[in-house]
């Protein structure tokens, strides 16, 4: 298991950290929120594209950078530090992975260069209920003469309110709960019968509900084999989960750093509050959790690149622990800051809000504990 970054990965990490700090600080998210942008930020997207961040997972033959998940994880961690709203998770991780893993030559040639260049924003439209349940797909794709007709609804699709292209998970066979019979379709945002309901979300990143009413798609819009979408979807979801865990780790680390800073400056009773043992021990416990979880995420990222056979387990480990971690740290961040932590002017609340979204997307701690137990045979 590789825990040491290569020179390229380290350079990318440094670039991403500096970029998040200088170009995507928390004040930038506030500014987007206050002018009602709902997380839509074409200017920043263009800068991210210029740095090549969208193409990290895209092979070089499709104009990508052709690095791996360890590299991508550094970028996700960096954007997590400033809880930045970017389409990287959906486009550069999920979209790029699904197309790379399962797309036809024509699909790859058409979309991967556009993903890598930042020209196309992609959104995976998966969940239909309020909780992540990737097998519970009821959206129907009915075979017709020329292709398929899609009918159904998708909830809380992140970046759904500004995506150019959707990957719709639909059922071509069987019933909700079954892996066999799931198929993946590429659907452009202007497809007839597709309606997008933008959502104002607690983290100010935005999302959308999708309604599909007799959306007609051609055979060439099917990704991979019919009924066998799960074989592409599951490994892609694991990459997304690991990337999101890396993002949450960045947020937790930044919130922790902010708290540590406050402990060393705020005085009460004539003392730095960081000298109070009740706070010291809680800080030390948070730090221990941070270190333990950092190892899980590093292992999961390199596990994908090394093609290990326990990636599913590592992904659930990373996502479950990162979910618990970000709640622990963001809740304590508010508490440690006291009254100021309750104000909108202070950043701690923003981390706590984003934490809820980071946990809910692609499966929370309880989803991944259940999966981990199943993978371990109990």
């Amino acid at each position, binding site marked *: 298991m590789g*825990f040491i970054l290569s020179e390229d990965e380290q350079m990318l990490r440094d670039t991403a950290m500096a970029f998040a700090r200088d170009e995507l600080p928390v004040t930038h998210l506030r500014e987007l929120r206050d002018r009602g942008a709902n997380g839509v930020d074409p200017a920043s997207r263009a800068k991210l594209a210029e740095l090549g961040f969208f193409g990290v997972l895209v092979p070089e033959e499709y104009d990508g950078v052709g690095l791996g998940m360890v590299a991508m994880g550094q970028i996700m961690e960096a954007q997590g530090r400033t809880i930045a709203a970017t389409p990287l998770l959906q486009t550069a991780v999920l979209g790029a992975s699904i197309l790379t893993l399962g797309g036809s030559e024509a699909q790859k040639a058409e979309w991967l260069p556009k993903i890598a260049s930042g020209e196309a924003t992609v959104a995976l439209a998966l969940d239909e209920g309020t909780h992540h349940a990737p097998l519970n797909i009821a959206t129907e794709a009915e075979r017709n003469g020329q292709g398929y007709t899609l009918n159904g609804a998708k909830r809380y699709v992140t970046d759904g309110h500004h995506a150019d292209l959707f990957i719709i998970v639909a059922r071509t066979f069987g019933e909700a709960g079954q892996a066999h019979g799931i198929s993946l379709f590429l659907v452009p945002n202007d497809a007839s019968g597709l309606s997008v309901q933008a959502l104002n979300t607690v983290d100010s990143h935005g999302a959308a509900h999708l309604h599909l009413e007799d959306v007609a798609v051609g055979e060439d819009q099917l990704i991979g084999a019919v009924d066998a979408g799960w074989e592409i979807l599951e490994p892609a979801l694991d990459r997304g989960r690991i990337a999101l865990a890396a993002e949450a780790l960045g947020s937790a680390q930044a919130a922790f750093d902010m708290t540590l800073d406050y402990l060393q400056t705020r005085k009460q009773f004539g003392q730095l509050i*960081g000298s109070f*043992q009740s706070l010291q021990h809680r*800080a030390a416990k948070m730090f*221990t959790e941070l270190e333990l979880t950092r*190892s899980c995420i590093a292992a999961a990222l390199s596990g994908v690149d090394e093609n290990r056979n326990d990636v599913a387990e590592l992904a659930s480990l990373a996502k479950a622990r990162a979910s618990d971690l970000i709640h622990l740290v963001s809740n304590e961040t508010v508490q440690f800051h006291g009254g100021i932590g309750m104000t909108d002017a202070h950043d701690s609340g923003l981390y706590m809000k984003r934490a809820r979204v980071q946990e809910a997307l692609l499966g929370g701690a309880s989803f991944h*504990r*259940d999966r981990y137990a199943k993978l*371990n045979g109990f």
Partner: protein
Amino acid sequence: MAFDAPEELDAFRTEVRDWLEANCPESMRTPMKDDEIVWGGKREKFKNPDSKVWLERMGEKGWTAPEWPAEYGGGGLSKAQARVLQQEMRRIKARPPLFSFGLWMFGPALLEFGNEEQKKRFIPDIVMGKTRWCQGYSEPGAGSDLAGLQTKCEDKGDHWLINGQKVWTSYADQADWIFCLVRTDKTVKHEGISFLVFDMESEGVEARPIKLISGSSPFCETFFTDVKVPKDQLVGKLNGGWTIAKRLLQFERSSISAGGFGGTGGSGILPPQEYAKQHVGVDETGRVSDGDLRARITDHLMYAKAFGLTVQRSTEQAKAGQEVGHTASIMKYAAAKMNQDKCELLVEALGTDGLGWSGDGFAEDAKKATRGWLRSKGNSIEGGTSEINLNVISKRVLGLREHQ
């Protein structure tokens, strides 16, 4: 030892493999049994005679202490070679030939702080497992506040005279020698402590085992009454013992967190999810039917996995020359929590089968789990309490200040 070129390491690997093949007895390639662990020393009985052969052979090569200098009987291996040895031993599932506080704690400290004569005198017998050492640190009045220790050491011209009491001395009743912190200056605290070693058979030394809640007695109360210690058995400088003590605690904390814990259960105990499957049952999908217990077991397994990965990460970082200082306190704190959680889950999953004490009415593994659970309560106390480790993390790692 600058010969770690790949082809040389490969040659070394072949040499190690052949040697192990020829010298590791068959029964030493089976999982360790609790009562066959070799601690060495004069009282060692070698329940399995092969373990004696194995210790002697490994000791002669210096491979019980692979990285210690060969001039004192150590293996003289480079880090890379020591890793090869470890890998090759793991490959044939070879048992560690020796468990020893001398190897884990005293030896490394002596190599760092001892004089030439002391190293020559003590290190070879540690490597060969001939001397079993115990640690005289805690006292009835000096636990977490270790530097408050009062055991008196007076300079009597041609010898030191020791009077006082130690407690929680691991296996003092089995040990040949003790390394001991004593007070040589009462007017100052940390700067008045010295580090001495002496023979446990010296006149005036008495060790009494302490019975724990688990029924076992791994620790003793140790009394010193007018014990005379030769002058050349002071390690380091007079009143300079605290520096050595702190360094040695780091070795202790890393060896504890590397899996040297009491109460890990010992051999024959299954993981908690297996007991849960057997005793609680599973539903039609194979899930343990008590969802709450299942989730808590999973949470523990994830913690344990995270712990293992963190050990790996810090090993790799150290290898790559990156700063990993102070991980010992983090890992000691985490290891205690991990082991205690596991022990609690084992007893909970066993249900009333986990509530036995002795006799045929309970299975051996279940009784071990019960006693292991009780023993594990010490994990957050021994070798620095969890609270002390959290203090160390806050102050030394996070840089938080002392209360004024």
